[in-house]
Each structure stands twice: as structure tokens, then as C-alpha cells.
């Protein structure tokens, strides 16, 4: 079980699912019947990346609460790496979303609810990095970062539900409660890509946690060696 959850095994699983999802999306799932046509294929990675980015911020939110309850710095490390990877995925969402927007609406950007709230998420979590960089003492930095991560997370459900509560926006709502809004071949391709992205998120978090632990070990050893 431990071997199955190791970073290399998770990366391999993610790679297999992502390649399978891509192949199914291009060779099995039909082209969208709407005006988007072939460019709708962007959806099979764009939507899973967006959901996994929000999931990463959810992990950071849970880690922030755990840190404030226990004052254990391992939760601060988990929050830090989750936000780092969440931001990486968010940047990908913004870039692929702009390409999607150009294909669907003939505009790289539109100030509509989903896009605007997602951009706000990116700015909020970018500010998290600024906050971390200005506080030196470990426990104080972790406390401020945890409080900020909890406040920033307020925008995550707003982003997720923006298209549902404000349907006049341009961004489509594909999946709704009780209705996937897709043909079965599209849904299977989407779910396999979603699984791949989730495994990739877990693998990247594991590896980045290892990096943070090694950095701490280097700092401790340097301190014990007197410089």
C-alpha cells in the first residue's frame, strides 16, 4: 500500500490516466455539437485542472485549520506546498481559459463572474506568498499564513458556484446536480482526466513536501555545524 502511494507510483498513475484521458477525448468522445466544434476538446484538461486547483486550496484550508489547532509546523508545510501547486494549476487554468475564451467568444478575456472570481483567487494566493516572505519567525509566519489561507479560501466556493448563481455570465455550466451534461463517452474521458489530474496533484504535493523537509534538514545541519 505504501509503495502504491509513493510519489513515483502516483506520477506513473497520473501519467497513465492523463494519456488515456487525452486519447479517449480525441478518438472516442465526439466533437461538441455547439459552435465550439473541435476546440471544445480543451475542456478535457481545462476543467479537471480548474477543479484540482480549487481542491489544492481546499487542502491548504484544512491544513491551516489543523495548524491553528496543533501549532505543528508540518501543517504549515502542507499548506505552503498545496498553495504553491494550486497556484501553478490556477495559472494553467487562466492560460487555457483565455484560449478557450478566444475560441468560444472571440475574446481573450471577459469580466464575467467565473473568470473574475478565479482571477481574484489567483491574486489572493499570490498575496499569501508576499505575506510569508515578510515574516521571519517560523511560528509567527505559520500563524499569519494559516489565518490568511482561511480568509482567502472564502473566494473558492464563490468561484465554484459563480456560474450557478449568476447564470448570465459567459462561462458554461456543464456539470450540474443529477446531470453530467455530457454524452457517456465524453463523461468517461473527462472522469479519467480528472482522476489523472487528482493523482498528479497528490504526487506533486508529496514531492514538494519532501523538498520542504529536505530544506529544513539542510538548515538544521548548517546550524548545528555553526554556519
Amino acid at each position: 500500500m505504501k509503495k502504491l502511494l509513493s510519489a513515483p507510483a502516483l506520477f506513473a498513475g497520473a501519467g497513465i490516466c492523463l494519456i488515456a484521458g487525452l486519447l479517449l477525448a480525441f478518438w472516442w468522445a465526439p466533437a461538441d455539437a455547439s459552435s465550439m466544434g473541435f476546440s471544445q476538446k480543451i475542456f478535457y484538461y481545462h476543467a479537471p485542472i480548474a477543479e484540482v486547483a480549487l481542491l489544492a486550496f481546499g487542502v491548504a484550508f484544512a491544513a491551516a485549520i489543523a495548524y491553528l489547532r496543533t501549532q505543528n509546523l508540518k501543517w504549515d508545510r502542507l499548506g505552503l506546498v498545496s498553495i504553491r501547486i494550486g497556484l501553478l494549476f490556477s495559472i494553467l487554468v487562466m492560460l487555457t481559459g483565455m484560449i478557450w475564451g478566444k475560441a468560444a467568444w472571440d475574446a481573450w478575456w471577459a469580466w464575467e463572474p467565473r473568470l473574475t472570481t478565479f482571477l481574484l483567487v489567483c491574486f489572493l494566493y499570490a498575496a499569501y506568498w508576499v505575506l510569508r516572505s515578510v515574516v521571519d519567525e517560523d511560528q509567527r509566519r505559520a500563524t499569519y499564513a494559516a489565518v490568511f489561507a482561511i480568509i482567502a479560501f472564502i473566494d473558492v466556493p464563490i468561484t465554484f458556484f459563480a456560474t450557478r448563481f449568476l447564470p448570465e455570465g459567459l462561462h458554461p455550466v456543464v456539470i450540474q446536480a443529477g446531470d453530467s451534461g455530457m454524452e457517456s463517452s465524453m463523461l468517461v474521458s473527462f472522469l479519467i482526466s480528472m482522476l489523472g489530474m487528482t493523482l498528479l496533484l497528490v504526487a506533486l504535493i508529496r514531492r514538494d513536501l519532501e523538498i520542504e523537509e529536505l530544506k529544513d534538514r539542510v538548515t538544521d545541519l548548517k546550524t548545528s555545524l555553526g554556519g
Partner: protein
Amino acid sequence: MSIEEGVKYVASAYAIILAVLIIYYFMSARRVSALQRDVALLEDEAKRRQAPAGQAGVE
């Protein structure tokens, strides 16, 4: 929208995703290796410094 136009957008989107993810994967792998090397070097140095002190204690 024509298929040719659609292909252009789809290819750009997937190229960006794959490039960013692959670059991040290799950067983090390199970082882990470099840090593991640093830890090994520092641990060797710590052992080396402890050894004469231990020997001095025995003598």
C-alpha cells in the same frame, strides 16, 4: 469555427499544459536530488567533526 482553427487553439492549450507540467516535474526532481546531495554532504561533515572529538574522549 473550422476544424483547422479549432486544432490551432486545442494544440496551443495542450502544449502549454504539458510544457508547464513537465518543466515543473523535472525542476522539482532536480531540486530533490540537489537537496539530498546537500544533506549527505552536511551529514558527512557533521560525522567528520564528531569523529576527532570522540577519539579525543577515548584517549
